[in-house]
């Protein structure tokens, strides 16, 4: 019996009778991070990285049954050893290491190598079998260092100030928004959407310091400011209130011009919280895994590539369907 398998409910560990990031309601769920396509409603009991517990509660409700473990600390379920290791994806994100009778599997959840200033830095965890995400599983994705893009973003903000415009950046409210807040060279007031504000406050409790920011209230009239909105914030009627704006989007998909023009924003910044192609290949090498399961994204391309390199690689279907970047 394999240590982990795919079931309609999600990744399942039969020996421990527990699911990893299940997308249907189950009894016991181990959660890799607080994004809503990984931490879902309805589980009887949640187990999560300690630093993500408050983020998950903020999203799923205060009264859920949840227990947190710090990175690197083992916990046991029916003789199976589990531990969380930083995934570098967003604050509180983890890879999940599973060990049973000397066999080690690692599920990456979502991950990236680059140290972004807000997420606990990633490190590879050696294993026999690796389940890796491949959201950006095409060689056309080669991330540049984030300093490059944050400098560009800063210059763009300054230019917009000269033209008397507000600068709007669309970014996921958890993770990307904080990464921008932390790294953009400030040159004026920064406002954030209430959804972003909530996540930022919890992140601050984890000991991360940000430049000064303000929650965007109905009566605020930002001028020449930076405003961070979740992608859905665009249609909020909020934009109208902001007057003359330039809109930018921070997402790995912005690395492809076609995707960028489809999103109809003025500027795209390919800043991603996922590994690029080389990042995935490097992880496969670093973990020395003999078997690789690819999930989330375009597994077919990665699987064929690894197979041709002599690895035992297989696709694990499209586990998570939402596109995020």
């Amino acid at each position, binding site marked *: 019996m394999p240590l982990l398998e795919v079931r309609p409910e999600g990744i399942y560990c039969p020996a421990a009778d527990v699911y990893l990031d299940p997308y249907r309601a189950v009894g016991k769920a181990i959660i890799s991070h607080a994004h809503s396509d990984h931490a879902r409603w309805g589980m009887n009991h949640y187990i999560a990285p300690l630093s993500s517990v408050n983020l998950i509660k903020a999203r799923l409700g205060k009264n859920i049954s949840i227990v947190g473990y710090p990175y690197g600390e083992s916990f046991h379920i029916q003789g199976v050893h589990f531990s969380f290791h930083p995934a570098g994806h967003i604050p509180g994100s983890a890879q999940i290491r599973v060990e049973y009778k000397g066999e080690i599997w690692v599920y990456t959840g979502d991950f990236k190598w680059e140290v972004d200033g807000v997420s606990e830095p990633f490190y590879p965890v050696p294993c026999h079998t690796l389940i890796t995400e491949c959201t950006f599983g*095409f060689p*056309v994705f080669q991330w540049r260092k984030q300093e490059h893009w944050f400098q560009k973003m800063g210059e763009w903000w300054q230019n917009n100030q000269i033209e008397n415009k507000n600068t709007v950046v669309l970014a996921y409210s958890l993770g990307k928004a904080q990464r921008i807040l932390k790294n953009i060279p400030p040159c004026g007031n920064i406002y954030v959407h209430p959804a972003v504000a909530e996540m930022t406050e919890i992140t601050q409790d984890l000991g991360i310091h940000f430049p000064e920011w303000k929650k965007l209230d109905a009566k605020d009239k930002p001028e020449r400011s930076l405003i961070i909105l979740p992608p859905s914030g665009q249609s909020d009627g909020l934009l109208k209130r902001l007057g003359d704006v330039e809109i930018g989007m921070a997402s790995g998909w912005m690395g*492809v*011009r*076609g995707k960028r023009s489809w999103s109809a924003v003025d500027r795209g910044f390919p800043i991603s919280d996922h590994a690029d192609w080389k990042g995935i290949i490097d992880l496969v090498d670093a973990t020395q895994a003999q078997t690789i399961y690819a999930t989330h994204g375009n597994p077919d*391309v990665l699987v*064929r*590539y690894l197979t041709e390199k002599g690895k035992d690689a297989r696709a694990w279907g499209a586990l998570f369907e939402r596109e995020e970047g």
Partner: protein
Amino acid sequence: MRDFELLVDRLDASNSTNAKLRALESFFQSASPSTAVWTVALLTGNRPKRLVSTTMLREWLCEKQAMPTWLMEECYAFVGDLAETLALLTPNPEVENHMPLATLMEEYLQLMKSEHLQEKKDWVFSQWDSMGQTQRWIFNKILTGGFRLGVSQKLVVKSMAKVFDLPEETITHRLLGKWSPTETFWQDLIAQSLEMSPSHPYPFLLANSWEGKEVKNCFVEWKWDGIRCMAIKRENEVYLWSRGEDVITHQFPELTQLFMDMPNGTVLDGEILPLQHGEIADFSCLQKRLGRKNVSAKMVEENPTIFRAYDMLEWNGEDVRQQPLWKRKELLSNCGWTEVSPFWEVESMEELENFRSNAEAHRAEGLMIKHKDSEYGMGRPKGSWWKYKLDPKSIDAVLLYAQAGHGQRANLFTDYTLAVWDEDRLVPFAKAYSGLTKEEILEVDRFVKANTLERFGPVRTVKPELVFEVGFEGISESKRHKSGVAVRFPRILRFRKDKSAKEANTIQDLRALIR
């Protein structure tokens, strides 16, 4: 290439026409003549021929990056643009090299003459190795031969007119005709006054769509379905220009012969029409002539053409475009050198509709309505000319195959093959790319992904469920098509969510539309 790179980046980054215009203006204010002339050449489609085939470029990329072909093809399918795919798959250099655009293009032209593929390959590789990502993308665009940045020639002209303080018309006029991307050509382009070569055409005047409620002081004439053509006779030579600004003199030797007799200094605007058994024939007869470099006597005999003139632009060597239309029609009718396309005065909507209902019987595709006092301006001026086409023919068809689009539609199934019923079988008859809203495109895309029956490379066969109303301009018999009919300009008019596949039209319904 820094100026050009900055310009292209700004043009590509914005969806706003005003921002593009500003980017062009600031570019022209500071660009050197040699960079400026190449930029205009590339943006207006006057670029040199391909240096190598795109197949070759793909091979080279795979070789250079030690990448399997299938992986490169997967990337291309995902990105949807070859130039960008190649730029994304090559690494960034430590230090970016910025070669002036003109130097790059001169090297390009030099290599065009070379017969050694290796020489071209070495050159392409050395460019890839020294350029940053945006530069590589632009360079690859030049190599693959497509520059779509949402910049029309009109916008280029507008910005140049502003920066160099010239009428837009003058620049448009100078951009027509023979091109050479040299500094001399640039100086002529922006010079305050200049003598034109005898082959030089005038810009075509275009029509707006008719939305009028009343018609007053107008001429109405048939809108022919042929090739709009400007016929020039100057200095004992005849030049025929198409709307696409191509010289088509050699494709129509019989017309050239005819115009040889016209006095020098005559320019006519008219339409080339195909004739079969003394009647105007289908457009497809003309297409046989267009694709050829030289047309044989046999070809001329089998597919004869005529010219019907709409307008006179130059007479006795004098530019008469500023004169009112009624005056130009008078000159045209009195000159006696050409067949004049018939025109009538109309004073009421009733009369107009009456003409329109007779258009098909005259083998016209609709009406042209022209104000009697209108001058022959430039572009698509308001209030002078209108086209009033017949309603498109339409049919309800079933989506049978879908294919992903390119560019910003890569990864979305946007190219549809549509079919009608032949008893209990669906026969494909048209491919359509446009006509749906963004939301509808996403909805169809989701349907295709969830209802794929078979895959042939990029094409998917889907469950025959979705019905679309397909409009088209014309329909004729065709032996080349499975369905036995060929439709012109098919496009989707409506997503018929109210209809089931069973309720779609049949091949008999479709055939009934053929005249």
